């Protein structure tokens, strides 16, 4: 693995130095030079160079091997818990429908569980042409080993070209296990999926380096091409599909070789209300600028006035002011509400990674140089403890007017 700089083409412009996420390039003697001890071969400099002076001899124009051609169709893992299909599965069907249409292939859902056959209708109406069902007592509750075995059996039998899985605490446990057993690649937390029109490969784009850069990844020679997507990133179908033509395929599950070495003794639900940030239309978030735990009472008041829910930055969660389930960002939830109001949040790249797809973004912050203002549609420079109560009053006044009208 080595990236090569062609000295005769290099103009020492320095673009590659800035492009390298790992600081592996410097300029010496009028040319760029790569420190092989630091270089990871990520190819960032290859695409950044405007003079074609940087090449990676090991990146061949790879044609899919012949055996990849027998893989066909797009699959979505229809994650269910206690018989309820998770919203992420419906979002993936919406995205999978586009990919399948671009490729001209069918879209299918893979449903694993026990006594869940009646759930297929919902999957058809959300875009699935067919649903593969493995119904077995061993699949009643999620366990890594039984689910991985069932998943792998289904993939080996029906050979899908693309498999999408939700990046939930279950999906992120299951997907790597399945991909590894199938000896194929897996791209985590994709924010954008597309089919390359020429080579027909799945182009998987995801944040890397803590969200500071984006990377587009392919899986050229192994099948299926597997990706996970976080909840809230993709969109469900706008209009329900015609579910009358949906095909249900019951797949036998050979349990003879399934070795389950873990036991779930108990499932404990968290106390307090469940915060559904991913599906919220309006989110009011608080950050370090609140200064104290009690500040969230004001955030909550604003959220209630607007009919929204409370979010938080990592700083506020780390300070112990609010539970992690409220956290928005790289290590929290990805949200895309119609309105996102960030109060006392500076807007680190990790926070932006979780909320930049919001419809309208409002920032309220004392510091006029806070990065959040770069992202906000409307910014208010000021003390949130003065701005927010005034805003709540204004909102109530406008709502009252609307009621009277």
């Amino acid at each position: 693995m080595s990236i090569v700089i062609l000295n005769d083409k290099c103009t020492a412009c320095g673009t590659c130095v800035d492009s390298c996420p790992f600081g592996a390039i410097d300029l010496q003697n009028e040319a760029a030079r790569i420190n092989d001890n630091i270089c990871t071969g990520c190819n960032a400099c290859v695409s950044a160079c405007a003079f074609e002076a940087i090449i990676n001899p090991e990146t061949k124009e790879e044609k899919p091997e012949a055996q990849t051609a027998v893989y066909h169709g797009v699959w979505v893992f229809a994650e269910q818990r206690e018989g309820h299909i998770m919203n992420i599965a419906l979002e993936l069907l919406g995205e999978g429908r586009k990919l399948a249409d671009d490729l001209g292939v069918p879209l299918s859902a893979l449903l694993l569980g026990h006594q869940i056959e009646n759930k297929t209708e919902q999957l058809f109406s959300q875009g699935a042409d067919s649903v593969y069902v493995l119904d077995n007592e061993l699949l009643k509750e999620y366990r890594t080993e039984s689910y991985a075995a069932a998943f792998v059996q289904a993939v080996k039998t029906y050979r899908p070209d693309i498999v999408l899985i939700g990046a939930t605490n279950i999906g992120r446990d299951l997907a790597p296990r399945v991909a590894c057993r199938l000896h194929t690649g897996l791209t985590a937390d994709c924010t954008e999926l597309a089919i390359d029109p020429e080579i027909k490969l799945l182009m998987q784009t995801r944040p890397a380096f803590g969200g500071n850069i984006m990377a587009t990844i392919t899986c050229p020679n192994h099948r299926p091409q597997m990706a996970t997507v976080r909840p809230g990133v993709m969109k469900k179908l706008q209009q329900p599909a015609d579910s009358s033509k949906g095909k249900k395929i019951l797949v036998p599950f050979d349990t003879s070789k399934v070795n389950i070495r873990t036991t779930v003794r108990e499932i404990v639900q968290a106390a307090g209300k469940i915060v559904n940030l991913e599906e919220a239309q309006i989110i009011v978030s608080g950050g370090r600028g609140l200064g104290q735990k009690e500040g969230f009472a004001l955030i909550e008041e604003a959220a209630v006035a607007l009919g929204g829910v409370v979010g938080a930055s990592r700083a506020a969660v780390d300070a112990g002011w609010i539970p992690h389930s409220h956290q928005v960002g790289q290590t929290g939830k990805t949200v895309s509400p119609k309105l996102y109001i960030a109060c006392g949040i500076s807007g680190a790249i990790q926070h932006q990674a979780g909320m930049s797809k919001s419809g309208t973004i409002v920032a309220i912050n004392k510091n006029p140089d806070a990065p959040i203002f770069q992202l906000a549609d409307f910014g208010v420079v000021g003390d949130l403890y003065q701005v927010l109560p005034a805003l709540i009053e204004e909102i109530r006044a406008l709502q009252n007017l609307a009621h009277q009208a």
Partner: protein
Amino acid sequence: MRILVCIKQVPDTNEVKIDPKTNTLMREGVPSIINHDDKAAIEAALAIKESHDAEVIVMTMGPPQADYALREALAMGVDRVILLSSRAFAGADTWATSLTLAGAIRNMPAVDLIFCGRQAIDGDTAQVGPELAEHLDLPQVTYVQKIKSLSHNSIVVERGLEHGYEIVESSLPVVLTTVKELNVPRYPSMRGIVDAFDCNEVEVWNEKKVTVPVDQLGLDGSPTKVIRTFTPPAKSPGKVLEGINAREKAQRLALHLQQKNLI
């Protein structure tokens, strides 16, 4: 009992800033640290060492300078450290990384517990732990937020879920991936630091010491290929609302939101 902890040295991505003029990463002075979830794994192993008399081995795969992360682990009190480092390992995706780790584990005395951090802050994939378990054909429990009990042949832990947790029992050996909320890692002692940087050896293993076919290592052995990286395009900033005081600014904001049918 023997415990292996797999860790990763990562750039502190919280310290990375984007140059607003060039829209590129500013890396100057970004420190390298032990990944937070992995440090919780080291602490968990050391706590078991104290209560159950275990040997703790810490292993990482990375460039020569990852040596520093291993010395920090030594200073915290682990018994042995191994650095998997070779040009042949470079450019590995999660599949090839986990295969390399598995190949190294096959060449060490049998371990009862393997800890990995749930995910690294630079890659955020959370894939290496489960893929390692698969390569070794071991059970796995991910998102471990509490260790409830441990015997010579089984362990009971809490596995975090989105809205709560589940209590899972597993036979040993097992791969556990830990979240940073599991514990508060100890600080190295002065004595530990001196020993770690003066006396203790970091074993360096190259491709000859792992049982993996060379064509399955590193970039060549990776099913996924990075074809392009780019800095997310900067959005053009919106309007900063003017006003003589907070009330006037709030009024303007409310009107804008009303115009967009958000109120």
